[in-house]
């Protein structure tokens, strides 16, 4: 704890993004023995990233990390600057001029495209749009989804696909007491969807669902999950994959899929059908999606490297809605190098690279560092790794004193940017909780940035932080 004695003042670090990876980077910095000040920049007035706007409303447990983040945010030396956007309000260069180091933690914000004809027909949506919509994200709250359709196809077999399917399949009454946005409840209540197809290009042994999510998808009220028994017959390489002890999740998934395949006739109101070995080839329709054409695949290659190859056969599913959930991509940041193939910032264990050379003071963490994999906690280990390297660079970073958050705030004020600080956020948060009370919800989110800022304009007596 004495290490800072001869150091030239505190280490000022700007963290861009306030989701899990940003907060865990802040935590690791604040727990270190270095004398650190953190400015966390967030483009929305509200923090917590995908814990707020990604985690499904019927998974309140998984939102509990917000309590952890709240306590990190209240730690001395931490400043929150919401409603501040890189490129619009401030540049990375300016962050670096006012701070010793910048940690990019802005995640992977857009969906991968299927790259097929008809992808942009009406009725074809990304998982991000739908998830953002039901979670009240300002970017997506005005999207429309025509749930008067009877059949929906979900392309992708990961946990986001599971969320999309479950939220659509669940009786809406089971969501009313969650923090799902009111506008979504209204639309979901009128949903006519009866049939879901959840399609994956490889087999049941390669599905990416964690078994916990898959099990949940198989136990939705008044909904039956089915699979095709023939598709659950595994080749030798798949059997090898399942024999591997580290692949326990796939083994558990396989048990579930086989149980779904044994499903006898059911009079449930809704049905989820898992389809494997099928890739989207085309969306067909006049005004809107009317059907999806799938290419049948077979697996080639050895265990754990099996790839889907088209078998030449195709099949069609009549459907009025398609949701694609085949992964996310990071978005390039104009001043920084970008790895187009992996859609991440090129980096070596968190140090951003220009060619082979680390860019002094620039770091990356979370999905923007390693790609969109893992769950909330995965980002904690990842951010600890990035921060470990940042702190190893500490002596070279702190050669010159920097103004830190004060300098940044001055810059923002000069530009007339209304940044949202921690006590502002606490006021927005309290107002949301209050709004939720009459419906028995944990909160009713504000879904427009102006509405969030209006709360602050109305408040005359700021809360104590």
């Amino acid at each position, binding site marked *: 704890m004495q290490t800072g004695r001869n150091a030239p003042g505190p280490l000022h670090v700007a963290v861009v993004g306030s989701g899990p990876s940003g907060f865990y980077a802040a935590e690791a910095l*604040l*727990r270190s023995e270095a004398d650190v000040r953190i400015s966390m920049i967030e483009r929305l007035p509200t923090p917590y990233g995908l814990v707020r706007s990604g985690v499904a409303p019927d998974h309140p447990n*998984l939102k509990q990390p917000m309590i952890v983040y709240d306590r990190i945010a209240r730690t001395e030396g931490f400043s929150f600057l919401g409603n501040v956007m890189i490129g619009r309000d401030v540049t990375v260069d300016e962050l670096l001029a006012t701070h010793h180091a910048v940690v990019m933690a802005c995640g992977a914000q857009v969906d991968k495209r299927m790259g097929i004809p008809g992808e942009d027909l009406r009725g074809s949506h990304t998982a991000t749009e739908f998830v953002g919509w039901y979670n009240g994200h300002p970017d997506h709250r005005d999207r429309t989804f025509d749930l008067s359709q009877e059949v929906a196809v979900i392309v992708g077999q990961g946990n986001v696909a599971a969320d999309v399917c479950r939220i659509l399949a669940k009786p809406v009454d089971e969501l009313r007491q969650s923090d799902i946005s009111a506008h979504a409840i209204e639309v979901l209540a009128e949903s006519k969807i009866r049939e879901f197809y959840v399609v994956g290009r490889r087999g049941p042994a390669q599905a990416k669902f964690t078994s916990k999510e898959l099990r949940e998808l198989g136990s939705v009220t008044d909904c039956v999950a089915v699979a095709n028994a023939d598709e659950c017959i595994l080749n030798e390489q798949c059997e090898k994959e399942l024999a591997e002890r580290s692949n326990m999740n796939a083994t558990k998934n396989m048990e579930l899929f086989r149980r779904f395949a044994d499903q006898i006739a059911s009079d449930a109101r809704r049905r989820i059908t898992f389809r494997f070995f099928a890739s989207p080839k085309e969306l067909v329709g006049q005004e809107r999606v009317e059907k999806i054409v799938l290419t049948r695949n077979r697996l080639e290659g050895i265990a754990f490297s099996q790839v889907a190859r088209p078998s030449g056969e195709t099949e069609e599913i009549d459907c009025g809605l398609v949701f694609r959930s085949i992964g996310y991509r990071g978005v390039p940041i104009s001043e920084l190098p970008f790895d187009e193939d992996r859609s991440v910032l090129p980096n070596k264990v968190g140090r951003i690279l220009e060619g082979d050379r680390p860019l002094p003071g620039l770091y990356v963490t979370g999905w923007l560092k390693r790609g969109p994999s893992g769950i909330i*906690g995965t980002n904690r280990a990842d951010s*600890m790794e990035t921060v470990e390297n940042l702190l190893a660079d500490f002596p070279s970073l702190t050669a010159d004193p920097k103004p830190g958050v004060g300098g940044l705030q001055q810059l923002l004020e000069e530009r007339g940017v209304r940044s949202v600080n921690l006590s502002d956020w606490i006021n927005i948060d309290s107002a949301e909780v209050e709004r939720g009370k009459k419906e028995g919800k944990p909160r009713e989110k504000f879904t427009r940035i102006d509405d969030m800022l209006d709360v602050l304009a109305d408040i005359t007596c700021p809360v104590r932080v």
Partner: protein
Amino acid sequence: MQKQLSHPDLSGLLELDSLNSRGLRPFTAADKVTLGRVKPQDRPKETRLPHIVTDNCQRCRFTDCVGHCPVECFHSDDERLYIDPDVCIDCGACIPACPVQAIYEVIDMPDGYLPWIEINAERSRMLPLIIAKQDPLPTAEARRKELDF
């Protein structure tokens, strides 16, 4: 709490007010900081499927799980780890992080593991929290071999 235990009961530290003004520091191997702790009363009331650390952790204590835990629910004694079921959010991030597959969600645990639920609950409440990965026990590699991982 049983008085003969060498580790103090830390439950008094769980309240935010009892932390110093910069509660996240310092961060040392023997860290007992509880800032990240989720208080049981903050948790939604719903059906719980707790996660448990079981036999394989004994004499390993690799602690990779701790680095992957988003809410700090791991407690440690000299030989192994335990999960506090009141803090665990059942996310499962720790399961694939363990090099010797010591962690299970209760619904998936092997036969005969039932007692581990109570052991985790009991022991976690009386042992100190650990919040970051530490060096494994000196016996860890031998034990990993023995367990064939």
